[in-house]
Every structure is written in C-alpha cells, then in structure tokens.
C-alpha cells in the first residue's frame, strides 16, 4: 500500500524547546558557521504529517555526519559516542482542523559543546523513509 510522504524542514539554532501547544521556541536560529569546540546548539525538525497517517507512530532519527557522510563519533571517558538521537512522533487530529489538512509535529534536539575538527558537517534527518540534511561549517581557530 502506498503511504503519503512526510514533509520536513531542518533548522539549526542555539537552543530549542517544544511546548504542549505544538510550537517550537527557538533562539539564535539560522546559523551555518561556528567554531570549535562548538557552542551548545540545537537542531529542529519541523514535520507535516499527512492526515491519513494520524495516530501512527513514526520514527525520527537525527545523526551528525562528516563531509564524507560518516557518522561523527566523539571519544568520551566511557568510550566512543555517536552523535545521534532517535524519537517517535505521533501526530493527532486536533479539533477544528479541516479533514485532509497536514498535521504538525516537531522534534528538537539540543546538543552539548563538541570538540569537532574544522570542516563541513551535516545533520541528517531520517523520517518515514525520507531523508533531509542541513549542513554547517566548523572554521579553523584564528
């Protein structure tokens, strides 16, 4: 059976929190150049879930990749840690919405400072069989 695709956008910002009304509160959105160690930052996925996929649990995953497409792994005292996160969104049909309307869903991931070498990086979003990336640059220390 063919399923409707999930539309999504990725936004980089300094901090983000979702609220019970479904909004995402972002600070410092829209950057694409940073230094190392990276300041705390956040990546936000804004999704439009098709009406016919309401109430379905849809898996969402975010991963930080290098310019070569390899997953970034940070060495910590407890061992290597991939910079990635997984979540499940389940959009509902709120009252007042016209039948057929897309349903809002969001996922905000806040990330601590990371010791990234200079270079180009991509946040990769995978949702419902689709993929989307948003890139940023870590510049050399001046």
């Amino acid at each position, binding site marked *: 059976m063919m399923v409707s695709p999930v539309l999504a956008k990725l936004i980089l910002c300094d901090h983000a929190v979702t609220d019970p009304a479904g909004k995402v509160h972002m600070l410092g959105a829209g950057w694409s150049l940073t230094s190392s160690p990276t300041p705390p930052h956040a990546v936000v996925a804004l999704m439009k879930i098709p009406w016919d996929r309401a109430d379905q649990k849809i898996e969402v995953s975010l991963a930080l990749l290098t310019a070569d497409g390899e997953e970034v792994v940070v060495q910590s005292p407890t061992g290597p840690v991939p910079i990635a996160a997984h979540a499940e969104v389940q959009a509902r*049909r709120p009252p007042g919405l016209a039948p057929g309307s897309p349903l809002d869903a969001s996922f905000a991931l806040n990330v601590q400072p990371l010791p990234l070498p200079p270079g180009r990086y991509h946040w990769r979003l995978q949702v419902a069989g689709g993929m989307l990336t948003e890139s940023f640059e870590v510049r050399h220390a001046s």
Partner: protein
Amino acid sequence: MEDTGEGFYEDDEPVEKIRATFDAGVKGVTGPRTSGQTQYLIIPDLVVDEFVLTTSDEVTRAARC
C-alpha cells in the same frame, strides 16, 4: 423498527461519548494537540577545552559558595 444500536458496540465502549461526538460532527478528531518532543544530547564527563559540563543545579550551588 427503531435501531437501538444494540449489539453494535462492545460492552466496554463509551457509547454515549461516541454518539455525542458523531452528533457534534467532529468525526476524525483524535487528540487535542499536535506532537512535539524535546531531547538533550549529553555525553557524561566529556571535557571540552578544559570545560566540564555541569548541571544547572551544580552551577547554582557553586555560585553560592
């Protein structure tokens, strides 16, 4: 013959609520709000540029000392 709906619903279904929702014309409503989730990616004990991440509680306590 009047249709009483008997036998159509299971015993544990909220029949009155289902009928009221149907009569109000809000079929298809499945939840009061949209879906949103916030996560924090924290790597325990990771030291970045001589800076150790602490919780806000630890920062507050350190400031009071």
